[in-house]
């Protein structure tokens, strides 16, 4: 019985998952280090824009965590999760833009001889916001934009409901594998194309801008605001990491991994595979929405291009490079690749001169990323996370290349060594 007790989750989570302690510790140290080095509350060694880049990176790690849950653990290769991320950004962006424009309009009308009526203020705001797309009235979609709590609710509810409806339709019809990926991609493409239209009510291809300015806090310097958002990003990532660990460590995680490897068998055990998929799809869409809502105020602008399918494909690439089916893998992949991407495309990487041809990393970065994705898939399917297994000397038996289950999303032999 002694060794039996070891097989079950009687020990505290921290002991069963040392990676959680390490992860949270590393995140905390990183946050403290950035706080000390940044301008806002520290000695000012690192620039404000770099703090924002780091904060944004943490948000990308957060959405990668969601992607790992839905793809790495459950085997649903969703190519639409960045759409939920974008929706989260739009939801918070509407309030930020409305409230800030309201302050400006009220100030400018204050000098008028007669005090402005609410209608005048509202028209003023609408002209300011929608003048760029040739409109001067609020579309119905902005009905709640004046209220922070309602828009915050939208951050969670809109991605959640969209995922719930889409997932219900797709999973109920038992759409799986590559067909589901194509469907999710169609969803994000459709959404992006819709938002590109000027009469979508969300300023067409201009998107929402000026989101870095918090309404009513004009006196607070950006160095302080950027630290607030950096902390919020770190707290969100830490909390989500703990929540996801709890989710995948118990029997629930066991069912998810079983669905990934052999969903037919799970059905014959009496589990409603559709209900589980729907749960995880919706849950991760909500995480993605929250991540977007913290990301875009740091980016300052959200536009329909952010919802383009390529963004969601990048997300899958990050998780694959980091190592799917392990939470820290997703975080490492997202952080590393997105920071490298910033470095290469920001023109900071030195160009390589090859006689007559100059390799400019701004253009060649995508080629490099594509190559590394192919290499990881072929030669190191466990991704960067696999290095940790190597260090911990974890080995598993030879399966002569057989995957772990019959489903398309099932782990392959090389991925499963853990």
């Amino acid at each position, binding site marked *: *019985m002694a*060794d*039996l*007790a*070891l*097989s*079950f*989750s009687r020990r505290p989570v921290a002991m069963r998952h040392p990676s959680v302690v390490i992860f949270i510790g590393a995140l905390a140290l990183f946050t403290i280090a950035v706080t000390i080095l940044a301008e806002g509350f520290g000695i000012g060694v690192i620039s404000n824009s770099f703090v924002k880049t780091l904060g944004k990176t943490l948000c990308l790690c957060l959405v990668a965590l969601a992607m790992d849950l839905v793809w790495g653990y459950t085997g649903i290769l969703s190519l639409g999760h960045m759409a939920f991320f974008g929706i989260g950004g739009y939801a918070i962006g509407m309030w930020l833009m409305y409230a800030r424009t309201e302050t400006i309009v009220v100030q400018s009308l204050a000098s008028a001889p007669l005090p402005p009526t609410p209608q005048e203020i509202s028209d003023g705001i609408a002209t300011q916001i929608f003048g760029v797309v040739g409109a001067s009235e609020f579309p119905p979609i902005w009905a709640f934009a004046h209220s922070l709590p309602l828009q915050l609710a939208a951050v969670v509810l809109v991605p959640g409901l969209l995922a719930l409806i889409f997932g219900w339709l797709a999973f109920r019809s038992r759409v799986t594998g590559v067909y589901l990926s194509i469907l999710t991609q169609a969803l994000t493409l459709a959404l992006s194309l819709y938002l590109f239209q000027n009469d979508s009510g969300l300023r067409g291809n201009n998107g929402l801008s000026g989101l870095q300015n918090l309404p009513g806090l004009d006196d607070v310097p950006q160095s302080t605001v950027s630290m607030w958002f950096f902390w919020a990003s770190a707290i969100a990532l830490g909390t989500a990491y703990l929540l996801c660990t709890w*989710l995948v460590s*118990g*029997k*629930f995680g*066991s*069912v998810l*991994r*079983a669905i990934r*490897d*052999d969903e*037919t*068998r*799970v*059905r*014959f*055990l*009496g*589990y*409603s*595979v559709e*209900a*589980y998929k729907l*749960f995880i799809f919706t849950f991760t869409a909500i995480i993605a929405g929250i991540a977007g809502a913290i990301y875009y105020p740091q980016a300052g602008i959200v536009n329909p291009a952010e919802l383009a399918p390529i963004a969601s494909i990048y997300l899958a690439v990050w998780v694959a490079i980091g190592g799917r089916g392990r939470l820290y893998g997703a975080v490492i992949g997202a952080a590393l690749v997105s920071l490298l991407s910033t470095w290469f495309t920001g023109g900071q990487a030195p160009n390589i001169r090859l006689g007559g041809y100059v390799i400019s990393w701004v253009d060649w970065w995508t080629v490099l990323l594509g190559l590394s994705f192919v290499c990881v898939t072929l030669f190191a399917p466990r991704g960067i996370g696999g290095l940790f297994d190597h260090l911990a000397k974890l080995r*598993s*038996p030879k*399966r002569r290349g057989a995957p*772990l*289950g019959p489903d398309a999303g099932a*782990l392959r032999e090389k991925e*499963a060594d853990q």
Partner: protein
Amino acid sequence: MSQLLEVSGVSVSFDGFKAINNLTFQIGKAEMRAVIGPNGAGKTTFMDIVTGKTKPDEGTVLWGEKSQSLLSMNESQIAQVGIGRKFQRPTVFEDQSVADNLMLALKKNRSPLAVLFFRPGREDQERIAELAEEIGLSAALDRKAGELSHGQKQWLEIGMLLAQDPKLLLVDEPAAGMTPAEREHTTEILVEAAKTRAVVVVEHDMEFVRRLNCKVTVLHEGSLLAEGSIDHVTSNNEVIEVYLGR
């Protein structure tokens, strides 16, 4: 005697090929039944129909005392009313430990929320220890199922089937790839299980069927060819012609 499962007049065809043709089959609450037949006789399709994987073109499949129709249920609902299935090839979750595999199968509330907040209690752990003992995998509880030998995977799947505590067990070639001693143990487990529940065994091996010592149903080209004791069916001329004579 009231029946647990009543399949009547069931037909199904795939692209014009009649896999099951007007099949009628009944089994009682605590009964062992062996189903034999040559390849393509429709044995696996029959199991697919009962477990909801395949919907028949016509006929009825009724379950239990209330005579519920299984045809309107999906696979997981059918599993929840108490039908467990063991596949021909062992299908266990290879990336997970033996204990996790058994825990997945253990008869519990299957809804996502219940599973999310589920933490195994003492009696669950004891039940799993008991099952592991029975299938000879006590020492392997922490090992990944993928590491097990073919025979051990068969055992694990039988253990998972028992953990589900179904009212009806559908077992597809349980003895494939087992040593004679293991076959004997399998026979014991199945005979023991059939004392309290219905067990349907699909098997090619006549010796194995003989040891089960139960009523035998012979399928041929999707319909019932003969039914009765093993001696009765093996002396049936038609059966000899289509199956045993070859």
